[in-house]
């Protein structure tokens, strides 16, 4: 086609047409680019929030979002494992440890306007416990839920449980849902359908948009009973790819990369970004398969020498991790006698040389980058002493099916982090017989007995001692090798303060109520 200069018809002139189209695109997109008000916080998520129902799904990445819409009776204090009141102002525990009495905060309203009463709490707790929902196990030990008056809740347990408050404070613990909403949308299924993508809680934020695979927005709740959050709006976008998250952060399209930011790049961050790091409950540890070469004490000693975290923790985490001192997270208690790895590399080499070829397979719980980094380092270390190690990312969920499998990897590298901060939770999830995270199904009755004994005790120091002892037993029996406790590292724009990271939460769950500029 020929284009003449005097021709004003756009269709006749391709060059002009393209200019127009391009101009229109650029123009429209300048208009479309979101104008950021000061008080909007933009956070990426790697995946969808499966369900927003606080009782019916084990959310990992989105649990912080749910916790800023719903509140429970108690919660963990930001930055620690101390339990403080949330909707419960105060509470009492009976001498026998079977009766818990909570006193509610006054003047709280749900986002739909319903006032918070003890009856509402009872309704929510009963929904959690009795309607066959996924997270019902948090209240398995609760025999009775009563509301003697409008401001008082009484829980009566089947058996003493020192960790009950932790269960209630857990991010996945029971939350209080508006009874009006529950009634209105019950539909014979305990409102699970409606609560999938709607919410009626008491938290500082209301659920705005719920667009899976795209974005979720939270709006500040105007009549929140507590301190008003700094941000009026939180935009949570789904950005599945880490490189995209990093680029978006650098381009100023989001305010933080809450987790998985590559450690090596933390030292070369641009000027306008900074790091907030906080110790967490993320303990990287190895489970060992019965019948693996590590059953031989000499090989075990040699392997422990090679994988000694002291040798590689800096390469893997820089300063953002600490060496695990026991199978219980460093945040839970400080053991009197930390676990020690042998250090004589020459001896290890000699030991392996004596055994001919030693091969080890390491299974990685997931494809998250930190697993690969740690296993690469350990394999390189093992290669130094002559052990041929290979690692492989297990398919999602495969770790839970390793029991009794002959071709399972010799070692499973996983993050052991419990759903609450009490050592009882850690042991109950990972160590004792039939624990869900006891991946190879190993049983050490003496240690289990100690754990059981500790869970009923009231004296904190005595409990800790028992747990520490059980930890040593699990380690010495060769079931479990704790490696490092990683920090929760959030990279964010400069000036973001009070992120409210809590050790028990999965990494990167910023508390939208406390964070401010």
């Amino acid at each position: 086609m020929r284009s003449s200069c005097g021709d004003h018809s756009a269709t006749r002139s391709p060059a002009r047409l393209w200019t127009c189209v391009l101009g229109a695109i650029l123009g429209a997109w300048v208009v479309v680019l979101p104008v950021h008000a000061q008080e909007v916080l933009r956070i990426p998520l790697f995946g969808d929030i499966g369900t927003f129902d606080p009782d019916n799904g084990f959310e990992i990445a989105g649990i912080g979002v749910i916790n800023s819409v719903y509140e429970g009776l108690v919660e963990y204090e930001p930055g620690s494992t101390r339990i403080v009141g949330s909707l419960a102002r105060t509470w009492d525990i009976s001498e026998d440890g079977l009766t818990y009495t909570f006193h509610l905060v006054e003047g709280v309203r749900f986002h739909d306007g319903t006032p918070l009463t003890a009856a509402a709490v009872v309704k929510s707790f009963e929904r959690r416990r009795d309607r066959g929902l996924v997270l019902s196990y948090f209240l398995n030990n609760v025999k009775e839920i009563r509301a003697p008056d409008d401001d008082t809740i009484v829980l009566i347990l089947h058996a003493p449980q020192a960790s009950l408050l932790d269960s209630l404070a857990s991010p996945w613990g029971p939350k209080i849902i508006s009874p009006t909403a529950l009634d209105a949308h019950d539909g014979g299924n305990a409102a699970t359908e409606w609560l999938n993508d709607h919410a009626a809680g008491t938290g500082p934020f209301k659920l705005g948009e719920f667009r899976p695979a795209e974005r979720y927005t939270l709006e500040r709740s105007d009549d929140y009973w507590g301190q008003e959050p700094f941000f009026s709006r939180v935009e949570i976008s789904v950005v599945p790819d880490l490189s995209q998250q990093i680029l978006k952060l650098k381009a100023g399209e989001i305010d933080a990369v809450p987790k998985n930011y590559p450690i090596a790049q933390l030292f070369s961050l641009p000027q306008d970004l900074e790091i907030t790091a906080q110790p967490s409950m993320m303990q990287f540890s190895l489970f060992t398969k019965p019948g693996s070469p590590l059953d031989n004490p000499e090989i075990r000693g040699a392997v422990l020498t090679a994988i000694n975290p002291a040798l590689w923790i800096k390469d893997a985490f820089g300063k953002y991790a600490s060496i695990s001192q026991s199978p219980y997270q460093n945040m839970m208690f400080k053991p009197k006698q930390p676990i020690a790895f042998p250090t004589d590399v020459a001896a290890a080499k000699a030991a392996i040389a004596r055994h001919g070829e030693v091969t080890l397979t390491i299974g990685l719980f997931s494809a998250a980058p930190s697993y690969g980094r740690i296993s690469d380092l350990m394999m390189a270390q093992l290669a130094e002493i002559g052990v041929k190690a290979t690692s492989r990312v297990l398919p999602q969920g495969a770790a839970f099916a390793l029991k009794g499998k002959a071709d399972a990897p010799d070692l499973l590298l996983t993050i052991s982090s419990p759903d609450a901060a009490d050592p009882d939770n850690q042991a109950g999830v990972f160590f004792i017989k039939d624990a869900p995270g006891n991946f190879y199904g190993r049983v050490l009755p003496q240690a289990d007995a100690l754990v059981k004994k500790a869970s009923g005790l009231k004296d904190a120091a005595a409990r800790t001692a028992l747990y520490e002892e059980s930890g040593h037993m699990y380690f010495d029996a060769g079931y479990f090798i704790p490696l490092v406790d990683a920090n929760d590292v959030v990279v964010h724009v400069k000036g973001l303060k009070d992120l409210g990271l809590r050790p028990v939460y999965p990494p990167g769950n910023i508390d939208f109520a406390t964070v401010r500029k």
Partner: protein
Amino acid sequence: MTSIHDLAAFFAGPGAPWLARFGRIGRLERASIVGLLLITLIAIGAPWLTPYDPNLRVGDGYQPPSGAFWFGTDEIGRDLFSRIVIGVRYTWLPALALVLFSLVLGSAIGLVSGTAGRKTDMLIQRLTDLVLILPATLIALAVIASLGPGLANTMIAIAIVWWPWYARLSRDEVRRLVARPHVEAARIAGARGSRLMLRYLLPGVVPSLIVAATLDMANVVLTVSLLSFLGLGQAAPAPELGSMTARSLDSLTVFWWLPILPGAAIFLLCFCANLAGDGLRAALRGR
């Protein structure tokens, strides 16, 4: 018959047709064929070609390319050049094996399907349809779950979804060939069964299959790298180009050599394979 035909008859003189055919290949394509041979040699000799042990930490991590480390070092201080050379071995040789396998299996099935009766043909066609629409990732998952992880099993997983294409291609070619007079003539002359297939049909199918296979090498390399990107490839620390690239994508803006250099190796493999395929097609089809 046609006047082109009579020109062709005029030219169909004695001479070495193969040599002449190679003359039809463009310069770049010829270079890429040589390049592929070279790559194969490198892949075979890789263990003797690496300056460092690819599995040991030989320096600090994240060193940029330098005289000591030509391609720099990776996250934990292994020599990237050595790892890429070994990675070429672990990517190229399996891809070759895979294509060869699919070629053999696919063309065997295609031959049977193309020469058998309608019912057998229909059955095989539906079967290939079925495999063609099964999501490859799922099959890979299933195979690895039931046979256990490992390079061979990953290859089996890919081969399962890979052969149908060759089966279809060779079946179509066979059917076209069967309709040609010389096959009928051979049959009348007494060639039957496997002799007919191997002597009169297979050689006619092979050229287009080889061209397809060469062009397909790139697809296989990319698929292998895609599977390892999804964590279904070889066990670490074996360097695999795909997972090396994919795992360090987030370093693009800071440690560019980590994703770019292994990616460039994949690119080179695919590029050579693609060009060589083009060249071979020119040679075999007479463009």
